[in-house]
């Protein structure tokens, strides 16, 4: 009596296009017009274990216009440098605490414009993507994977609050579509 073992891959449904790693494990939610700054949309990738990965939305000017980033500044005010975050243990002791409005970093673009990135989520900062320091352009090239900005352990009891400031993919797509209509309707001056 032995069990017959099916070859590996037989239970994987064949597809024309396979979803990305990001799509398979994360639900994307969006913060539209962050801090009332028009079009500065953020994206929060929520893993099935509730860990949040914060990044820029495809519609954010930096990503949408494929801007060249000259630097990303993680020094917030005089006291806080997001790169100096140290966490210990399972519960991430010593982590910098974040409120949804907290600034994670400032993106300086070569066109002279500067953009602030918000935490979007109430929680503990687990890590900043250190690869962005050497290669800030990752943020433009791969915002939904290697160009992520930060990983945050959300504060679960304050979960309700962070749900309310974020919208689902569908709603986000609607907002972006409406913007396009508006832009097309603006008379050229």
């Amino acid at each position, binding site marked *: 009596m032995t069990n017959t073992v099916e070859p590996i891959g037989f239970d994987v449904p064949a597809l024309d296009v396979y979803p990305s790693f990001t799509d398979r494990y994360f639900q994307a939610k969006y913060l539209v017009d962050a801090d009332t700054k028009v079009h500065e949309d953020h994206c929060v990738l929520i893993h099935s*274990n509730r860990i949040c990965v914060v990044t820029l939305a495809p519609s954010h000017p930096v990503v949408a216009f494929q801007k060249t980033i000259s630097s990303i500044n993680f020094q917030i005010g005089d006291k806080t440098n997001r790169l100096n975050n140290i966490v210990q243990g399972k519960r991430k002791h010593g982590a910098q605490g974040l409120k949804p409005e907290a600034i994670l970093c400032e993106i300086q673009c070569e066109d002279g414009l500067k953009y602030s990135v918000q935490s979007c989520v109430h929680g503990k900062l687990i890590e900043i993507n250190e690869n962005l320091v050497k290669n800030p352009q990752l943020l433009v090239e791969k915002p939904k994977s290697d160009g992520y900005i930060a990983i945050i352990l959300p504060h679960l009891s304050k979960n309700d609050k962070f749900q309310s400031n974020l919208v689902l993919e569908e709603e986000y797509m609607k907002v972006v579509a409406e913007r396009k209509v508006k832009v097309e309707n603006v008379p050229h001056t």
Partner: protein
Amino acid sequence: MGEISGNNSMLHHLIELGCCKLCCLRYLGERSPSAYKNPVDTLKKKYLLLEDCEVEENPSKLKKSNVCLACLGLLQENLRETVISKIVSDVNDADYDCQEFSCALSMPVSFCLRTHSLNLYLMDKFPDPSEDTAEIRFVSVKDVWKWVAASEIADGIKKSFSQSNDCDFSITISIGYDDDEKECNCLMEMHKETYDVRKKQTRKFKDCLLSRKSVEALLLTTKPDHFQKYYPTPPEIPNNAVKCASVSLHHNSLYVAGRYNKFSRKLSQTPWLIGGERLMESSVQELLCDRIVQLAKAQDLRFSSSGREDVDVRMLGRGRPFFCELINPHRVHLEPKHFRAIEREILSTTKDVSARHLQIVSKDQVAQVKTGEEEKIKIYSAYCIMSGADATVDWAKLESLSSKCPIVLQQKTPIRVLHRRSLATRERSIFRLEVSKAETQEPKAFVLNMATQAGTYVKEFVHGDFGRTTPSLRDLLGSDVDILALDVKDIELDWPPEILPDNQD
């Protein structure tokens, strides 16, 4: 002759104080267990007890047939029989199949005071020429109780009594005494300062202001005249006898080891509960161990294995070494045929797991499997897909990876486990890496066969986890690749010993 006559006057004094026969022998320093079998005979023959002082037959000389002031009745026949019969019936009801037992008595705290008082009194009144301490000169209640009770218990429960410390089955008899608190109250005055402090240290001394150990330690430092101010020497004759408050039975853990296979991609290793709610119908642990627990009639179990695979990962090949600790087992004589039957039963009831080489292992063997966890090599097969829209499998590049081994990875704790593990960057090695064609019709798929160091996160090695594992297969190939199925093919650890088919009756 001088010693005997000295003993004789001490004996008469003990009887007058209200000591029972066995306690008389204790205080006379009698160390032969057999002397306690027939105490009246011993007292008459060895200690020249005269007929008219005979406790049993002529109680008129005593106040009345009192509760012994030294043992609080524990050694007196009536109570002894009640306690023993309760132990016997409790043990028989619990139905343990082990062959030996050890037993321990837990005495009330006030008993320490009583013993201390009587010791002081007798040491003063009958000084010992050899200048031994009371603890050496007199025989303890516990020892005598075991001498007289153990053989009776042994007969009643059909197990042999063991004096050894590593006897696996222990009976703990907790002795209760109604006047315990009343008799202990004097300590609050005797050591007012100490107890006033302790009463304030509520966290440290919560529920146990008076423990036997702490009281014994305090009494050692108490001067006799100070003690006598608060506690009578000799102690008073008690109004009540002690009683058997509880009998608790415990058998040391039994360890059953084996190797398991897991054929399902929808089965977690241990019960998966979130907020008390089950996420999966069953688990490897339950499918393997429920029957073992039933067989051993154990109270509880702890499942452990050398590593663990994810819910969606199959465990093939020789299987994964595991063991379960059976806590307080009532059946310990488990035979190979029982284990073979369990293995067959698992095969016939589920397609999801199987077990082999089931056997009893020692605690030392269990420790072996836990050490050297880091050095183990694990063999995996991964079903991978080139995930880019127009990507194709670059066989030449994949095949060239074999020669790059060992590949040393820097792995940050994967995002998927970051909620319950600490953040760290760990160095792990891939010792061998070979690519083969997938048996599916998928042109974008290939199978990666790997030998890795224990603790390597294979899924993250393939897709890179947002660049948090470097180098990843994606880095090495220079294009997006994803892992859609994973099998563990072997854990290179020869444990527990294989059971050869010859022995499978």
